[in-house]
């Protein structure tokens, strides 16, 4: 069953992030995907995350689709103008990719090619509108297409950001322009997440809560300081701090993730896992949280 059918049926879904390689060696990325395929419903493939050069998202998506698994194509507005975005979308559809996640994209100076010219010809709301135009058989200029797309369109929202007001307004615009599901930045504070959900529940668009396994107390502190919208509560950091060995940290990390998932589950339609190298923990996390 496809992701859109699962969400339409009200099923609780699990998606997992997959990163294309820095180079042409795709074995490792595909191996990770195969190992997790029986545990998750779709793989969300990043698009030059943090503005660091990697293989195209659509290329890994196409390889994942060829293996019989379901990819979600992440698309940012950073590197392509409206022509290139539409061209890649048409190509992606022809390669068997049915889901797109529309994002703004990080600024180039955050990555490994800081001198790159930023594009941002469209913003994320306009990108969603563009994908919906292609779905209707027309390009952004209104020209008729020979063969249209039928993408299932996702968008992102960062519920931990302060102040939240402008982000909620933008989320509403995304839904109005055709976002069919939302995926969030990593959630560590389920009470704050619940408050956010209450504010947007009238939208009636499925929301997938983001989950990032903590590797250490240091990582948690780093994210709190440097990543917008991530707030790991002090008691969770303390929990990680008490774990002394790597094995203990992994065990603690799994417990924390499972606890958050159990807490947010009644308020969302799925979770989006971002294991960042700890792909091996995903089956345990899902088992402990009661999802498998």
């Amino acid at each position, binding site marked *: 069953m496809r992701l859109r059918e699962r969400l339409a049926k009200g099923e609780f879904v699990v998606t997992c992030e997959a990163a294309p390689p820095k180079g042409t060696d795709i074995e490792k990325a595909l191996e990770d995907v195969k190992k997790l395929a029986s545990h998750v419903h779709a793989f969300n493939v990043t698009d030059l995350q943090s503005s660091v050069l990697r293989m195209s998202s659509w290329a890994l998506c196409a390889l994942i689709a060829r293996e019989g698994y379901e990819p979600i194509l992440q698309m940012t507005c950073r590197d392509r103008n409206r022509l290139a975005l539409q061209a890649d979308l048409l190509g992606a559809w022809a390669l068997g990719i049915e889901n797109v996640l529309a994002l703004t994209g990080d*600024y180039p100076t955050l990555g490994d090619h800081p001198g790159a010219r930023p594009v*941002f010809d469209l913003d994320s709301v*306009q990108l969603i509108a563009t994908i919906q135009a292609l779905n209707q058989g027309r390009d952004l200029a209104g020209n008729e297409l020979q063969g249209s797309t039928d993408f299932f369109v996702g968008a*992102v929202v960062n519920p931990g950001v302060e*102040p939240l007001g*402008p*982000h909620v307004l*933008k989320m509403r615009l995304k839904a109005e322009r055709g976002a069919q599901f939302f995926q969030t930045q990593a959630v560590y504070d389920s009470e704050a997440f619940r408050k956010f959900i209450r504010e947007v529940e009238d939208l009636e668009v499925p929301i997938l809560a983001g989950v990032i396994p903590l590797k250490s107390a240091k990582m948690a502190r780093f994210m709190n300081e440097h990543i917008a*919208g991530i707030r790991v509560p002090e008691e969770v950091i303390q929990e990680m701090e008490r774990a002394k060995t790597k094995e203990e940290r992994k065990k603690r990390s799994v417990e924390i993730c499972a606890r958050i998932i159990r807490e947010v589950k009644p308020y969302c339609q799925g979770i989006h896992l971002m294991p960042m190298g700890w792909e091996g923990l995903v089956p345990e996390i899902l088992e402990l949280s009661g999802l498998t």
Partner: protein
Amino acid sequence: MLVSEPKPTEEVLGYLRAGERAFLLACGGCAEVCGTGGEEALKKWRPVLEEAGHPLTGATVLPFLCNKALVGLRLARFREQVERADVVLVASCGVGVQATAQVLDKPVYPTANTITMGGLQGVWASEERCGRCGDCLLYYTGGICPHTVCPKGLLHGPCGGSQNGECELEPGRPCGWQRIYDRLKALGRLDLLARYRPPQDSQKGLDVPLARRKAPFWALEYLEED
């Protein structure tokens, strides 16, 4: 020379709610030479506004609205007229609109689209910059230009990197969209942010259209250089 051209009349009238009173401020600088500011702008907009049911509380031409300090100083003479107005319409380039918005706690709306800056000579650049998009959005954004305050030039609110009112580019840099949000909130016009803006025509800001090159300002430009 900043080159601007008038916005369509219906677009500007569409900014005003029924019966709203306006103060009309025209620039006596580049915009006057381009025919979008100066006395010509007062002559054009005064009857248009009055016929559409928007009484004018006052109207004036001030030289070089790009100079925020001078705008504040010179507008002081019109304080009462400005205070009685619901909105202030500014016939100038995007810099003049933004400079005026900075000194007034009222909605400040553009009546022109800024196309290019031309070759700027001996200019002290101030904080209010214009993105020369040729399709001025300052009405929707509380008189703050989203093209220049947001490094990504986003048109529908902040990206996910905005945190505590700061931009993801560097600590301490204000998020442009947080500024726009706060300004519109203070003006009671957050509804303007709930509107979708289709992608803009990127060609507009690239060069001066042939038709505008025939305007008097173009001849003046060459006279200056001779």
